[in-house]
């Protein structure tokens, strides 16, 4: 292998930190390969803050803030940014609202000004709120005819139930979205759009000092009333039973399946072992072991892969596959057999070596673009991994053992107690 420090050009020696006068944390990485710049950040405002009957208000608010400020209309915002090929976004997630944008370096000032105006001075015009509502509702109607999307949504609800925020659809439902009023959005914004603990990352062809000055000028005075309420949610628990959901859609040709359990969170000590186990189960090569058995040997599916959504809380560890309705039962059996194998037997030496080589060797690829760097820096901050994380990363991977992977699989995966959603031209006997 190549000397890893030579391919890890990002670390304490290159990352610059600043704190704006209101406490917003700023991380900067200069990258002069292309005359472009990327901004990424987050606020502690997410769907976990939604009340059940107002499900989707966090997502709705994120869509609504960029729909006009006290001085700029939605069309003016679009015209300003798009005229220079720039883009600004705000997006509501489960715990966090993400924001950011991209522009040519020469237009960075404009990008910062529009972004801060959107975050600080949204006007929530009634007309724009109704436009957003129409788009969300049409999207939710489309979802009712989308086998993959429905299988994902129903799987989550099955795994966590509606009692837990992780079980609820982040964008709300056809029942909740019509009831969200402008006041609800305004209230959500006032309560949760807050500079406290906000983070901004800037990567690209810019000078650090100048970036700091511009952001301090644009965002440093942001002092909303009150303090940000803490969002404490109960820790999700592993299932102790099997849950199964089937939605029969006779007009479709393929059935989509999601099967899984509650995985670890990002801070769990088993996280890295679980991640490596997930690579071996459903990614490495052409979708790992699942690709080899379900797709390749049995020819049951075009896609069959796994995913570990470890974040601030315990996200799902799941397997997804799209199969002909005649093959549903056989595919489920094969998926469960692979889950059992990861628990019952240690992975092979070769699988573990391949996984380590891939995760360490592909690091430069993941850090190639400004977006790739910015996403990594945000994660480093959010999960408190330290500025030397990229340098330590190869050693973290190299230290993973077969025993750790098996223990992580035994702790989090379960071929008996799991949630399973099937949507498509399939009926339970």
């Amino acid at each position, binding site marked *: 292998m*190549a000397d890893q420090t030579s*391919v890890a050009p990002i670390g304490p020696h290159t990352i610059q930190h600043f704190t704006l006068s209101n406490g917003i944390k700023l991380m900067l990485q200069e990258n002069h*390969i*292309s*005359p*472009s710049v990327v901004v990424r950040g987050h606020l502690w405002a997410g769907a976990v803050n939604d009340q059940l009957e107002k499900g989707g208000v966090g997502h709705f608010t994120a869509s609504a803030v960029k729909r006009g400020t006290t001085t700029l209309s939605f*069309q003016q915002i679009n015209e300003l*940014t*798009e*005229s220079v*090929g*720039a*883009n600004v976004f705000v997006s509501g997630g489960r715990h966090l609202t993400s924001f950011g944008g*991209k*522009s*040519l370096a020469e237009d960075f000032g404009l990008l910062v000004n529009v972004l801060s105006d959107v975050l600080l001075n949204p006007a929530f015009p009634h007309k724009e709120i109704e*436009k957003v509502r*129409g*788009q969300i*509702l*049409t999207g939710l*109607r*489309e979802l*009712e*005819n*989308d086998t*993959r999307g429905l299988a994902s949504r129903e799987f989550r609800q099955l795994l966590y139930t509606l009692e837990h925020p992780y079980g609820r659809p982040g964008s709300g439902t056809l029942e909740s979205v019509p009831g969200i009023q402008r006041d609800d959005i305004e209230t959500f914004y006032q309560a949760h759009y807050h500079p406290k603990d906000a983070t901004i990352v800037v990567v690209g062809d810019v000078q650090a000092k100048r970036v700091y000055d511009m952001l301090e000028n644009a965002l440093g005075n942001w002092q909303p009333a009150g303090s940000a309420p803490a969002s404490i949610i109960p820790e999700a628990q592993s299932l102790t039973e099997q849950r199964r959901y*089937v*939605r*029969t*859609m*006779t*007009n*479709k*040709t*393929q059935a*989509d399946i999601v099967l899984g359990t509650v995985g670890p969170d990002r801070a769990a000590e088993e996280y890295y072992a679980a991640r490596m186990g997930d690579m071996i189960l459903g990614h*490495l090569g*052409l979708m790992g072991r699942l690709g*080899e058995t379900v797709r390749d040997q049995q*020819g*049951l*599916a*075009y*896609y069959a892969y796994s995913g570990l959504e470890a974040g601030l809380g315990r996200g799902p560890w799941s397997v997804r596959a*799209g*199969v*002909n309705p005649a093959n549903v039962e056989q595919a489920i059996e094969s998926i469960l057999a692979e889950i059992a194998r990861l628990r019952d037997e240690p992975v092979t030496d070769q699988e573990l*070596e*391949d996984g380590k*080589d*891939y995760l360490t*060797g592909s690091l*430069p*690829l993941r850090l*190639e*673009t400004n*977006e790739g760097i910015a996403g990594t820096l945000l994660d480093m901050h959010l999960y408190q991994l330290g500025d030397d994380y990229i340098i330590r990363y190869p050693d973290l991977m190299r230290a993973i053992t077969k025993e750790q992977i098996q223990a992580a699989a035994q702790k989090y995966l379960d071929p008996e107690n799991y949630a399973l959603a099937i949507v*498509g031209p399939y*009926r339970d006997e």
Partner: protein
Amino acid sequence: MPNNDTAEFQLNNGLKVLLKPVRSAPIVSNWIWYRVGSRNELPGKTGISHWVEHMMFKGTPTFPKGSIMRLVNKNGGLLNGFTSYDYTAYFETLPADRLDLGLRIEADRMGNSVFDPDEVESERSVIISEREGSENSPNFLLREELMSLAFRAHPYGHQVIGWKEDLRRITHDDLWDHYKTYYGPHNAVLVIVGDIDPAATRARIQELFAPIPAGPAPPPVTATEPAQTGERRVVLRQPGTAQYFQAAFHVPHARHADHFSLMVLNAVLAGASPMTFGGGSTPTHRSARLYKALVESELATRCGCSYSPNIDAGLFNFYATVREGRSLEEVERAMWDEILRIQDELVSEEELGKAQKQAKAQFAYALESVTNQALWLGSMEMVDSYARFYTFLDDLTSVSAADVQRVAQTYLAETNRNVGWFVPRTEEVAHG
């Protein structure tokens, strides 16, 4: 615009090579492009190019089944392959010191892929499953209808995935013949962008690829689409929950003088297209004409148009998702109103300047990644010339408002129009 820093050469067996050194990161992207796609397929054999692409991951005697993916991953790389109307491409993006692995894989599977009969059968169900996944999407079904309506003579009328009946019947020997006809140095372009030593890379390419014998020239595609003389429509009534609109107009091939005017027309209507691959796009459509006329007016929730150059005369496409409570008629009328407007009135200098600035930005974004740069060089080389990469912004700047108006009048004409409606029959979305 940047100076042309791509080294171009050809081996004696016909393999064309493009090398572009980019030393921003210790990464290299290695691509092989074959001049074969669904365009080269005959009735009864549709989908065969894409199926051959799948077989190219099944191994060779030197790289047994599974080892291509495994070795590239093991060396920290990513790889993929894809098939389009005009070409089939494979790439490995790797740490720069692992380029040799990518070169050895591509040199080997250019002629030595194993088409094991059992593997052909197992891949048949994978590909049918891929198609069935797409069939779940109303927009795929509508697109398939619209393409087959727009093209009566030319093979662009069928989708890359192919007709399901053909996928059931294509044989091992069909696939093998297709591979032997189109895969070889005489029909391929190798594109490498990244942190390379051009002299050493060139020597290694010579060593690995020069011994591969050239085959006979593949049969030319002679089918030519006759001019359309009247509007064609298709209405797809199927179970669903939303209404979808698509339209397509015939436009000339990529080497035609109107190519850049059509690109600017597209940018004025729907924003400059991103030139990136696999995420990281920076959309600029919300201040463009169609979004204002259809989404801002609350007729649609999503709309746009697209124009991508092809070897033969292709299509300029429009699409929209109708907003709940609105109708396909309203959406279609608003779409034609926008087309009439751009045919009747010259676009302003501001709009032209905006389209050019957007293209400049998209170009800069694409430069961040060597994979994107290689994608760009290769795909342009397939339909025209890689050198377009270097004159792209100048070529766009040379387009005038009158050019945009002229191409809108010439090609977005009613007699050249193909229209597709997806009308949902909601009562039939069966829920169990």
